[in-house]
């Protein structure tokens, strides 16, 4: 029999709670729940179903394979599934047929849609670059993108559903400039004949904090999972709950030459633990914190035990969680290891078994 070397616990009640909080926070704007990267390591299908059951009608899937896998799993219309990372070589016909909403930045992408010979119009969200400089049409290219989309709309090839952007969250002033550029782009689109498009700009942080960033729809990823930005308010103080707990049993206890002892868990950097964690992070055993110590191995981490540590092989180590077993939260992990909690959860190996609680 294989003894699991670790397990990920997913609290769907906490997830539903977060969705309720976010829905109330941004009303009357709608909520999109972003489920990219296996729902930030929380489980694509389980999270999507819980979101739909909570009344969410927009799911953000990132790419076309993810969007189609959700349709195949029974997430059907009228639930809208949005995908915006498009492979330049990809055949768009199956996703258009599955009524997946596409994030579109270029005339070339519109031409690919036109060439796909789909039976039904493609639902498109036209993206303007308001400063992040990733994708999205530049302000110079924007009228051309909108005009081509309008042509295709008149031909029944596309339906322009939305105008959208993504902002840098550099600071409030820069974000305000992006909001103004977005409003200009929406006005241009209307002048070119786009009728009442949905407007969406904000992800978690700006959508939660700024009413002027919400428009018609807010794309929530991190906050759905109870993952606030580093060095800001905790999830708890925002009324959110961390959804994921990572635990592992002690696999070995060793005496050290200096008289101390150390315990191991069989999770290492190949499983997604950060090599920055030893010396900066403490984990919880039986409600007490013990420091992670180096070296972090490829498949093992070491925990220092003090003299009065009453622990045994097989005891549960809580690596991170909502703090209720004395452990550090993912926000604390991110701050201590110079990253964000999102990076910690999406880098976890899919080999670690996941269990709903």
């Amino acid at each position, binding site marked *: 029999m294989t003894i699991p070397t670790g397990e990920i616990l997913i609290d769907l009640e906490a997830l539903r709670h977060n969705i309720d909080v976010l829905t109330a926070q941004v009303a009357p704007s709608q909520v999109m729940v972003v489920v990219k*990267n296996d729902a930030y390591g929380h489980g694509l299908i389980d999270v999507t179903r819980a979101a739909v059951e909570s009344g969410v009608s927009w799911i953000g899937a990132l790419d076309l394979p993810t969007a189609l896998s959700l349709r195949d799993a029974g997430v059907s219309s009228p639930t809208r599934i949005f995908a915006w990372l498009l492979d330049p070589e990809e055949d768009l016909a199956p996703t258009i047929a599955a009524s997946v909403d596409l994030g579109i930045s270029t005339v070339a992408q519109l031409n690919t849609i036109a060439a796909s010979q789909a039976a039904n119009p493609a639902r498109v969200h036209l993206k303007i670059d308001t400063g*992040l400089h*990733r*994708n999205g049409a530049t302000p110079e290219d924007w009228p051309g993108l909108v005009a081509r989309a309008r042509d295709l709309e008149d031909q029944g090839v596309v339906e322009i559903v939305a105008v959208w952007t993504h902002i840098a969250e550099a600071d409030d002033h820069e974000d305000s400039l992006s909001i103004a550029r977005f409003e200009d782009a929406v006005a241009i689109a209307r002048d070119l004949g786009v009728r009442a498009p949905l407007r969406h700009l904000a992800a978690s942080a700006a959508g939660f904090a700024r009413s002027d960033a919400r428009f018609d729809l807010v794309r929530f990823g991190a906050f759905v999972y109870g993952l606030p930005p580093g060095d800001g308010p905790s999830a708890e103080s925002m009324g959110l709950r961390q959804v994921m707990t990572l635990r592992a049993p002690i696999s070995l206890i060793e005496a050290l030459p200096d008289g101390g002892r150390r315990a191991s868990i069989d999770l290492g950097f190949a499983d997604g633990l950060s090599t920055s964690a030893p010396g900066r992070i403490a984990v919880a055993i039986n409600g007490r914190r013990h420091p992670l110590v180096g070296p972090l191995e490829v*498949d093992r981490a070491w925990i220092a035990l003090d003299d009065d540590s009453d622990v045994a092989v097989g005891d549960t180590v809580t690596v991170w969680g909502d703090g209720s077993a004395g452990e550090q939260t993912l926000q604390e992990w991110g701050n201590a290891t110079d990253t964000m909690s999102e*990076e910690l959860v999406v*880098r976890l190996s899919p080999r670690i078994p996941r269990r709903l609680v």
Partner: protein
Amino acid sequence: MSSALTTHPMPLRRATIDLGIVRGNARVLIAHASPSRIVVDLRGDAYGHGAAAVAAAMSSEAIDAFLVSNDEAAHAIRASGVLIPAIQRRQADAAAESLIGPEIFGLDTLSVPDPRALGLLPAMTLSARVLSTKKVGADEGVSYGYVYRTTAPTTLAMVCLGYSDGIDRHACNGGRAWFAGSTHPVAGRVAMDVFMLDVGDKPVSPGDEVVLFGDEAQGYPSPVAWATSLGKTAAEVTASLGDRIVRSYV
């Protein structure tokens, strides 16, 4: 983890593993090893290279055992027809063994800081395709927090790898990737699914390939150079690469 051969002609994200290089490195290291039981460390799915595929490639070498992280990897090695036993840590006897580590993939470790000096070549080439391109002016901020600003009018290429694939968020601090014959700076924070490359005045189109690291004899950044810019070992970098990256073998 992913170790399947793929027939996809143009995957968006690809780690190409040269099994001939793995075999060549193995012979160099076995010749250097003390005359004892030789164990090759394939933990962490062979540090991201795919344990079953690399074990099969070394099945005729003078190796006594492969060290793996879990039963799943041991089963996968046996299922690929390899007769060399796959053992786990509790079955190993460090005192009686020569353990060959990730230097077998041309990666640096604490004990082998300069694998190339021993004639060990990197087995993995990590590449990804450009999704879109954009011309921007001088002094424009790029990506989250605008920590990168362009110094002159330039072209930015959006490359399909992000921190969910195991690319460090801080790779913008000195990280460079290869495109069209030379290396270029990673522009701005690496996002969850993409990063931006500042390719200057090089013509670039969606679908073009960018190489993050590989054999420096071909002009690519070496995995050791890539990892050093992040304050990591290359073994940590390759072992952390995610499963969306298609492993293909040559």
